[in-house]
């Protein structure tokens, strides 16, 4: 069996992020995704959803995040969209990895991880909403 598409609506809070992680575990297990792929998908969605919770919606204000995952052949396509203030996360400069321990800021790694781990990562505004579109090419072996 393979789950070929999964759409989810979640509240912008940690409880729903936890439920999402459990659903991704189930999805990866059922569809026989490799542990590497399962880890990358969890991590990137964790980072992006956390950013919408932390930086997107006003603290305490209710917010909704929509997610769509499609799995066809050796390709995962993921779309995350939200209704918070428009912000392109890929407009951030990458973190300076050469800084020493005293100078490295805490944080600022989430978007860098997403960009590095995914095959494609793009931002778009569609119908006034933030949309992040990710693609992960799966190894034929996985």
């Amino acid at each position, binding site marked *: 069996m393979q789950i070929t598409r999964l759409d989810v609506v979640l509240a912008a809070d*940690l409880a729903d*992020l*936890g439920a999402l*992680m459990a659903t991704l575990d189930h999805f990866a297990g059922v569809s026989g995704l490799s*542990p*590497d792929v399962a*880890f990358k998908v*969890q*991590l990137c969605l*964790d*980072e992006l959803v*956390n950013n919408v919770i932390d930086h997107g919606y006003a603290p305490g204000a209710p917010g909704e995040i929509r997610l769509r995952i499609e799995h066809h052949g050796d390709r995962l396509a993921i779309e995350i969209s939200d209704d918070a203030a428009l912000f392109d996360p890929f407009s951030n400069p990458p*973190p300076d*990895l*050469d800084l*020493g*321990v*005293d100078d*490295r800021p*805490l*944080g600022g*790694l*989430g978007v*860098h*991880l997403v960009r*590095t*781990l995914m095959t494609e990562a793009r931002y778009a505004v569609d119908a006034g909403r933030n949309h992040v579109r990710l693609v992960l090419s799966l190894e034929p072996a996985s």
Partner: protein
Amino acid sequence: MEITESRHRDILVIAPVGRLDSTNAPIFDQRLSTTLERGDTAIVIDLSALDYISSIGLSVLLSVAKKVRRLEGRVALAGMNDRIRSVVEISGFTRIFEIHPTVETAVAAT
């Protein structure tokens, strides 16, 4: 979250179990702060029972490295699986942390 501790001579080995994510990282951060305040400044963080780490978990590791440096102590990472190692590398932490394949090599390297 489960966190196990053991002592090898003057080195404290501390091992987070499971996931270091937005739910669990603050708990691990708190535990590490308590450890440092207690006077343990030679620390091996054993990641061999860790399945998952996100950027907030990486921030906790960086934060302990900063504190240990101010205290003129020592912190090493040990036992990472390949997935966690790749995330640690992407974050440039190989330049910041002493990294060992196992707790044993980390303890022996003192």
